[in-house]
């Protein structure tokens, strides 16, 4: 093992330690018995606090870990497979597709969790496939530009579909569900929801983790990847599908939580390295920290909940502007001319 990789592994270990600490603090944070943290000893003596922690806070924090790790991992995978740090599943019709699928299920079929998940998953994959197929038929621009433009168009189509569904939805029973979906958040997450997405999310993350070095190869252009002995098309499709399944699984319980998949991979590459061996696990851990912190803030800062999606977009978009405008970063880690 060479020295640089060793240093990155140490940092990764430190980040994991930070995540565990954050998770512990998040479980102890809340507005009962008063706003702030409760000590573990006080909680052990208070049955109500214990029950709050076990049945409300713990599943919610686990959901936050899955959500953050899933979105950030999928973002890293998308950025590497498209060799472009400016894409994330949300840009390619995946998120809006999932939102459309969820709304459709709420209005037309059933509001049960599995129906929403299935419908959101199918429509997310459809969104990705449509973006890809339409991009192939665009007559101008480089591949990445075409893909992003196609993604914008497909997302807009799905958004229009969601608008139409909202218009016909029952304002008392169905509309609130859809609105929740569009804002994104983890309130009301319980054990049954967490256990329903846990297996598929963890399985997907393990697969992506297994491919962490190979992602580097797949970020090369097609001919280079081919000359290195890969079948790049097949492997890319497989990993895109896996990342999309993970994305739609986690957002099926959270709704749309934006910007995580775009911004966290950037941070991970800066803190660790561009090599997928550390960039991908780093993204998972940083994404989990980010969402746990944001979600804890969302539920404890005010008496009412701040929608998580609003918070992550606010911070994410702000960071994005900073990342792309700060000179030393543009000249340092990213080379704008390489992404045209």
């Amino acid at each position, binding site marked *: 093992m060479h020295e640089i990789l060793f240093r990155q592994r140490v940092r990764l270990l430190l980040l994991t330690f930070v995540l565990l600490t954050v998770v512990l603090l998040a479980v102890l944070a809340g507005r009962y018995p008063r706003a702030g943290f409760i000590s573990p000893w006080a909680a052990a003596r208070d049955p109500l606090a214990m029950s709050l922690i076990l049945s409300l806070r713990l599943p919610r924090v686990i959901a936050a870990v899955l959500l953050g790790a899933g979105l950030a991992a999928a973002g890293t995978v998308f950025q*590497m497979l498209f060799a472009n740090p400016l894409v994330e599943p949300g840009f390619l019709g995946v998120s809006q597709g999932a939102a459309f699928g969820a709304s459709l299920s709420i209005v037309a079929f059933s509001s049960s969790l599995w129906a929403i998940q299935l419908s959101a998953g199918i429509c997310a994959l459809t969104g990705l496939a449509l973006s890809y197929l339409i991009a192939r038929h665009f007559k101008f621009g480089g591949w990445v530009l075409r893909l992003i433009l196609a993604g914008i168009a497909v997302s807009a189509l799905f958004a229009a579909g969601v608008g139409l569904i909202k218009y016909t939805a029952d304002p008392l029973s169905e509309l609130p569900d859809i609105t929740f979906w569009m804002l994104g958040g983890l309130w009301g997450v319980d054990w049954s929801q967490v256990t329903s997405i846990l297996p598929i999310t963890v399985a997907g993350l393990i697969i992506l983790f297994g491919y962490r070095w190979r992602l*580097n190869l797949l970020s*090369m252009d097609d001919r280079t990847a081919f*000359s290195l*002995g890969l079948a790049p098309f097949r492997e890319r499709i497989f990993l895109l599908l896996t990342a999309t399944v993970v994305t739609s699984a986690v957002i099926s319980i959270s709704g749309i939580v934006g910007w995580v998949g775009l911004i966290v991979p950037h941070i991970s590459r800066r803190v660790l390295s561009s090599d997928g061996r550390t960039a991908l696990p780093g993204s998972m851990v940083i994404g989990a920290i980010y969402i746990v912190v944001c979600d804890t803030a969302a539920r404890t800062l005010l008496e009412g909940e701040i929608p998580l999606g609003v918070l992550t977009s606010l911070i994410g978009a702000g960071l994005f502007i900073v990342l792309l405008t700060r000179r030393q970063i543009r000249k340092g880690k990213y080379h704008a001319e390489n992404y045209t």
Partner: protein
Amino acid sequence: MPKTILEASRIDYRYHPHAPLVLNKLDMYVEAGSITAILGPNGAGKSTLLDLCLGWKPPGAGSISIKGEHISQFSRRQMGRLMSLVPQNERVRFDYTVLEYLLLGRAPYLGQLEMPETRDVDIARKALEQVGLKELQYRSASRLSGGEHQLMMIARALVQEPEILLLDEPTSQLDPGNRHRIVRLLLKLNGSGMTILFTTHDPNMAAEIATHMLLLQRGTVMKSGTKESALTGPNLSRLYGIKMEVLEVAGKTIVFNGEEN
């Protein structure tokens, strides 16, 4: 009797079903242990021919074989061990270190879920030493000079430990010093038994190192054979459409653009 390691027989290629032929009933024999230069004007089909040898583009007709076996008999990983490519313009898309970038060359030796180990790092370091970039191993691969970048690309190809090395215009954008470094490196690699096939616009580069030549004109072979038989004034004049001369000066073959005489 020299052994043919790579053979193309009567291959056709076109980009679309209705496009004109880029390669037309082309035959090529590459001897094991040779350095073969593919020369030809712009658009003659030089790079396309490399892509076909690599298996990246399938020929419309005809067949390509390596060591007597049809190219389709080899798995993708086997191909990656037999042959490596030094592409003409490859951009480094993320901020890898030189060493990380070279390790990508180990892909054909690693399974889907495997990652490079100490042995692979040693091989990558050895390749860096061979091209003379040892001290740059932790530098950012996207911030090398043109010459360093090209040497790094060759080093990555060496990390694949190929039997055949393909290079697409290896010296086209280099200054004389770096060009000389690449020439010396290719000769050294050939000396250790590696078969080398490269395209070039520089007849002097071909004259300097090639043992064999393939003169390509509008997708067909104008002339092929040993350097002595193919690299002649009349052949080059016909190939490029201007008067060219081949002279022997102090034991070296030098190609002149004849109009200047």
